[in-house]
């Protein structure tokens, strides 16, 4: 049987930052579709031999978009490695910086990457579907507001963490720098404005997206729906938690499937390898790998904002909780399987991050200079988890008694979604390519499915950033390009 | 009116009186007063052809008379002028600061600033009549010897002095004094500028209480040689049985690893002291070895004739039994254990350098004397230029050795000042200010304190810099570089020199490089693929050079340096060792056998060692 092959390749085949291959059968229907990630950097290998306390600086370069997540998670791993609990002020500083980052990153995605689809509109000219288009639509004042809040929240990371891209402040048992009164004053304003900004974003989403039936239909439609397990961190009350907590997994019906400490993550998560991509495919170990399929019997699970909201019983802060309730009310109760709902969930999370910032910055203890706990135990192994914007992030180091790494294991945020992303692409392809006819909307649909996950291929493979333009080259049987579709990914 | 001492010499007063007269008259017109010089002699010129040294002495004497008058000097004879000025040139600026202490020394060769604190002696003029002692009411016990608060001090100058610690300033002495006494204890400070410094400070006793088994301070009757000497001399001690233990502290890796050289004679001297006074006293000398070199052998023989018992062995301990001191040792001649009961045990201690003075100069001796045993033939490079030692400041020595050493120091100074300018024998380090970030790594690493910060910039003191190159390899930006030793040049040299399978030998020019020369003399052959580059010091080897050689395919890199404590640049080889150790760690992680780089200590005559090592590396 002869198959026709369609390659969706960012930029060109030669660029290779992540590409989509679609094979058509004789009838011109989709026989197979997959997302290939063509690179790997080997952090787990070259972490070996390094000093544990340097890991927060090393692992954060896995991704320049979410370095704070890697940095903080690595710091937490060192706490566990040395058996040391950071003093409350240190933990608060870490958590404050982390929430600032969460807020900033979620907004970055919404306004710069994912949002243009909705705000400017999926049918708008491609040239306008970017931040400039967003500014055009919402007005220059709002645009400035977006740029301003990004700058100020990133300034929090810069002040406390040294560098904003790749901060340096986390150490085993605390942070390197205490907060001063002046900083607190400034950050307090930023935090309060962040809450206002989160409100604004959610209102904009309601006005522009939810009020538009076309968009709403798109969100609740079947194309972007996958019934999978969901994973996320929850606090003692099963509320969404970013910095710390228990890992909770719910099944496709929304029932609790597992709740475990990060120490036991190896009992619950396994990663499979395929020869056609450099990315690995995590699945729920107790169910097993059944391939790229939906449902209760498949070990595929999803993370990131939707995963976290589905895996929890609510948000940890009051305003966010209101929006949470509205979210499930609108989308027909828990769990929500619609991939595009990620965008909304993301903004609700940004609200929680902003509210948490306000809570933490008003805590007088955050000014305490006792930011290091030096009561170290002899190191052996450390495991920690954090909720990165793009999903649950695991760091696991094993060391000798001198704290020199002997083994490392990293399960990175986006990689948790790698199976689901493949499924979304295949589903979109099957829906849109029929009888050899390649629908023009394919690119857009695939793109939107893809972007909803906010995929950071940099994270997923410990390789490069995934925010790249997509290009679909369609080949006939003779491997001649018969059609080229392309777009700007961000 | 100006006043000069008038030096007439031989001819003028006898054969040219009119000349003298006119000179005196002219001087009067010019408002110059002449003071006649009592006791002035011939200037010395006539003797110059016979014995220049004696002629100089005569001239010096005359100058001395003038300087005692505190006047400059005028001569009327051209020969005298030449002779006296020649002598003055040679003895210029001899100035004594007696009863003085050096507070600190700064600067460098050609420009040392020495801060001296002088305590007044009390007795200003004195003819040693001794009347003051008789009237002084204060009696002092000076370590066993009784004296008065004013007393005769048998040192230069030949005068009495007041002991201000005990003087009550009653003024009795002034009443009888024919000279001049000042009762106020004046302390004055002054700064002396000097081109060079000779340290002739002497030495210190080793603290024998550290040799715990001999019980000094713990057991009555155990004393040091000086205590013993005073006690016997003052008549306080009349021992029946004395044991003198040798090598207390010396030749002991836990105390002083060296032989203090003079203590053997000192011990013999104490034995003679007691035997002379109390011939019946039994004296035992317990020594590992008796080192009575040269004419001291006569002395040793003499004491044996006097009946002193010499025991070969090192006592294990001194303890008390029934109120008596017991020295336990083995007699190596009979192989028997030996216990000697005695009432007095004398510890002939070793000697340590006068560290405080060296400290003032910033010279770290690590408890050793400033003689470098390994390279004694090459001179003492651990001392900064313009600083010399003489006598026991160099190493414990007797009078004879001290004189020789003092002469050596004097000639070292002369040869240093022979030239108007001091030529640096070695290249200096230089700073490229465009690259220097004042990170101070060079200051920390320089063994000579030659690098410092002046006006927020790094400066190299060219006089102190010895040209080792440690700093240029230390500098993280190559901002400080040794003249003529350019790491970049060495880079190219290695790149062109090293082929696959070669062994690169970077050898210190003082030791290991000479060993290769020696290898040639001794007709040793070593593999052809050993490529040798001479470096100023093992510490002038840049780890980057090693990396480059490895990249070029070298199968081994040998860094050859001087033995520890024998480095010509004080600490260079330790720097090299530290770098080698870290480099090994690094190379291990880069997939090399750690032993691909070897830092070996190869003495300048150890050709066999060099050959052995490169052959092993070549296998």
């Amino acid at each position, binding site marked *: 049987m002869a198959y026709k092959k369609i390659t969706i390749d960012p930029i060109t085949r030669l660029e290779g930052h992540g590409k989509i291959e679609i094979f058509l059968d004789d009838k011109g229907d989709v026989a197979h579709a997959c997302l290939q990630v063509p690179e790997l950097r080997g952090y787990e290998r070259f972490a070996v031999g390094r000093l544990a306390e340097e890991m927060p600086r090393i692992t954060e370069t896995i991704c320049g978009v979410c370095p704070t997540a890697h940095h903080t998670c690595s710091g937490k791993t060192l706490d566990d490695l040395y058996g040391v609990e950071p003093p409350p002020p240190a933990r608060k500083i870490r958590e404050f910086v982390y929430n600032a980052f969460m807020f900033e990153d979620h907004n970055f995605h919404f306004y710069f990457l994912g949002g243009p689809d909705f705000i400017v509109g999926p049918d708008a000219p491609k040239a306008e579907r970017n931040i400039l288009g967003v500014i055009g639509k919402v007005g220059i004042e709002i645009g400035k507001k977006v740029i301003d809040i990004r700058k100020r929240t990133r300034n929090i990371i810069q002040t406390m963490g040294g560098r904003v891209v790749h901060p340096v402040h986390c150490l085993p048992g605390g942070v390197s720098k205490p907060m001063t009164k002046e900083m607190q004053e400034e950050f307090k304003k930023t935090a309060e404005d962040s809450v206002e900004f989160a409100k604004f974003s959610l209102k904009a989403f309601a006005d522009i997206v939810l009020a538009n039936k076309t968009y709403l239909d798109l969100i609740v439609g079947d194309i972007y729906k996958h019934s999978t397990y969901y994973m996320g961190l929850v606090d003692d009350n099963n509320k969404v938690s970013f910095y710390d907590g228990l890992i909770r997994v719910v099944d496709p019906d929304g029932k609790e499937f597992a709740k475990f400490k990060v120490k036991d993550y190896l009992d619950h998560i396994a990663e499979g390898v395929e020869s056609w991509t450099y990315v690995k495919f995590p699945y729920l170990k107790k169910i097993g790998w059944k391939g790229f399929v939906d449902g209760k019997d498949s070990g595929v699970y999803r993370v990131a904002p939707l995963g976290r909201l589905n895996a929890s019983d609510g948000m940890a802060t009051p305003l966010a909780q209101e929006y949470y309730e509205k979210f499930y009310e609108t989308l027909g109760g828990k769990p929500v399987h619609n991939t595009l709902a990620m965008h909304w969930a993301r903004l609700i999370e940004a609200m929680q991050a902003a509210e948490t910032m306000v809570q933490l910055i008003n805590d007088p203890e955050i000014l305490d200079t006792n930011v290091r706990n030096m009561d170290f135990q002899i190191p052996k192994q450390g495991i920690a988890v954090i909720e990165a914007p793009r999903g649950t992030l695991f760091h696991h180091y094993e060391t000798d008694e001198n704290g020199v790494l002997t083994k490392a294991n990293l399960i990175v945020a986006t990689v948790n979604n790698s199976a689901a992303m493949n499924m979304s692409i295949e589903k979109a392809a099957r829906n849109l390519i029929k009888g050899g006819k390649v629908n023009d909307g394919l690119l857009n649909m695939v793109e939107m499915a893809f972007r909803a996950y906010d995929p950071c291929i940099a994270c997923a493979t410990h390789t490069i950033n995934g925010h790249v333009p997509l290009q679909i080259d369609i080949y006939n049987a003779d491997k001649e390009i018969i059609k080229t579709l392309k777009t700007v990914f961000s | 009116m100006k006043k000069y001492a008038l030096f007439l010499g031989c001819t003028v007063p006898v054969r040219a009186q009119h000349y003298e007269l006119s000179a005196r008259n002219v001087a009067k017109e010019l408002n110059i007063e002449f003071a006649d010089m009592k006791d002035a002699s011939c200037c010395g010129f006539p003797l110059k052809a016979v014995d220049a040294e004696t002629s100089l002495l005569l001239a010096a004497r005359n100058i001395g008379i003038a300087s005692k008058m505190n006047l400059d000097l005028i001569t009327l004879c051209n020969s005298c002028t030449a002779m006296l000025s020649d002598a003055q040139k040679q003895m210029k600026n001899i100035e004594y600061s007696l009863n003085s202490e050096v507070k600190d020394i700064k600067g460098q060769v050609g420009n040392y600033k020495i801060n001296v604190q002088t305590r007044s002696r009390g007795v200003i003029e004195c003819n040693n009549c001794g009347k003051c002692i008789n009237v002084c009411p204060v009696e002092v016990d000076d370590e066993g010897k009784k004296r008065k608060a004013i007393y005769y001090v048998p040192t230069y100058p030949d005068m009495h002095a007041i002991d201000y610690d005990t003087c009550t300033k009653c003024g009795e002495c002034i009443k009888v004094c024919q000279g001049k006494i000042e009762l106020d204890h004046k302390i004055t400070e002054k700064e002396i500028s000097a081109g060079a410094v000779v340290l002739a400070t002497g030495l210190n006793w080793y603290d024998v209480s550290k040799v715990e*088994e001999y019980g000094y301070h713990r057991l009555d009757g155990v004393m040091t040689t000086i205590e013993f000497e005073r006690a016997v001399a003052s008549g306080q001690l009349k021992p029946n049985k004395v044991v003198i233990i040798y*090598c207390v502290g010396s*030749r*002991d*890796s*836990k*105390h002083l690893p060296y032989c203090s050289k003079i203590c053997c004679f000192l011990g013999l001297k104490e034995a003679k002291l007691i035997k002379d006074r109390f011939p019946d006293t039994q004296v035992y000398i317990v020594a*590992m070895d008796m080192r009575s070199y040269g004419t001291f052998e006569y002395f040793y023989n003499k004491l044996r004739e006097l009946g002193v018992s010499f025991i*070969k*062995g*090192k*006592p*294990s*301990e001194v303890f008390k039994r029934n109120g008596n001191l017991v020295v*336990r*040792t*083995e007699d*190596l001649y009979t*192989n*028997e*254990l030996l216990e000697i009961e005695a009432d007095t045990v004398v510890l002939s201690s070793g000697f340590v350098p006068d560290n405080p003075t060296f400290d003032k100069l910033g010279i770290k001796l690590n408890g050793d004397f400033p003689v470098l045993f390994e390279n004694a033939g090459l001179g003492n490079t651990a001392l900064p230029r313009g600083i010399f030692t003489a006598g026991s400041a160099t190493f414990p020595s007797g009078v004879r050795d001290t004189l020789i050493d003092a002469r050596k120091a004097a000639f070292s100074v002369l040869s240093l000042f022979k030239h108007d300018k001091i030529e640096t024998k070695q290249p200096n380090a230089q700073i490229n200010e465009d690259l220097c970030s004042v990170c101070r790594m060079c200051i920390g690493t320089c063994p000579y304190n030659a690098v410092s910060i002046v006006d927020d910039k790094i400066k190299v003191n060219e006089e102190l810099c010895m040209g080792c190159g440690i700093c240029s390899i230390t500098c993280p930006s190559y901002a400080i570089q040794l003249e003529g030793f350019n790491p970049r040049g060495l880079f190219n040299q290695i790149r062109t020199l090293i082929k696959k399978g070669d062994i690169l030998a970077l050898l210190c020019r003082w030791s290991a490089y000479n060993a290769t020369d020696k290898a040639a003399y001794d007709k040793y052959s070593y593999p052809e693929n050993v490529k040798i580059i001479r470096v100023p010091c093992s510490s002038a080897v840049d780890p980057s050079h090693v990396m480059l050689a490895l990249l070029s395919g070298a199968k081994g890199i040998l860094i050859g340096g001087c033995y520890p404590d024998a480095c010509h640049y004080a600490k260079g080889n330790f720097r090299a060792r530290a770098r080698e150790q870290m480099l090994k760690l690094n190379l291990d992680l880069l997939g090399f056998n750690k032993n691909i780089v070897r830092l070996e200590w190869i003495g300048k005559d150890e050709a066999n060692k060099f050959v052995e090592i490169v052959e092993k590396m070549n296998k």
Partner: protein
Amino acid sequence: MIDLKNADPHFKWETIKKEGGKGLLKCFGCSDCAASCPVRYFDERYNPRKIIRLTLLGMKNEVLSSPFLWFCAHCHACTERCPQGIMVADLINAIKNYAVEQGYCPEAYKLQLDLLKRLGRLYEVEDFDLKKRQRLGLPPTDKTIPEVAKIVEYTNIIKYANSKPQVPNTNQDDSSCQEKMEKE
């Protein structure tokens, strides 16, 4: 008489190779060790200086077959005082090790080795001892520690201990001493 014809030039180098043998060559024979030695005080046949001297001279038979080699009580008085910083007691031990390797293991040590192999400790713990311990409120101890046997078997120690001297012993006096000691 020391006849240097019988000297073994390798002896001192072999000794240096042994654990603790370092420092042998530093000895300049001051005799501080002998003077410090409490064993020497009571039995002059034992003299560390002499042992070291003979070792330096290469008198292998004399040293290795000497029963006095085994007298050292390891009090380390000599080590404390040696001016050359030689670990004298360890040095003597190194010579002992070499002696065993060369087949000069005293019976007493063989017995000890046997006990260790069998029990894992020098003294057998009998029920009586255990009861006594119990009465005193002390925790019980293992009667045997079989792993010691494994360790002992793993090393060459038994082979060495049971070997015969490789060099025929010519020194009649010393061998009779050895016999005497063995009887004792």
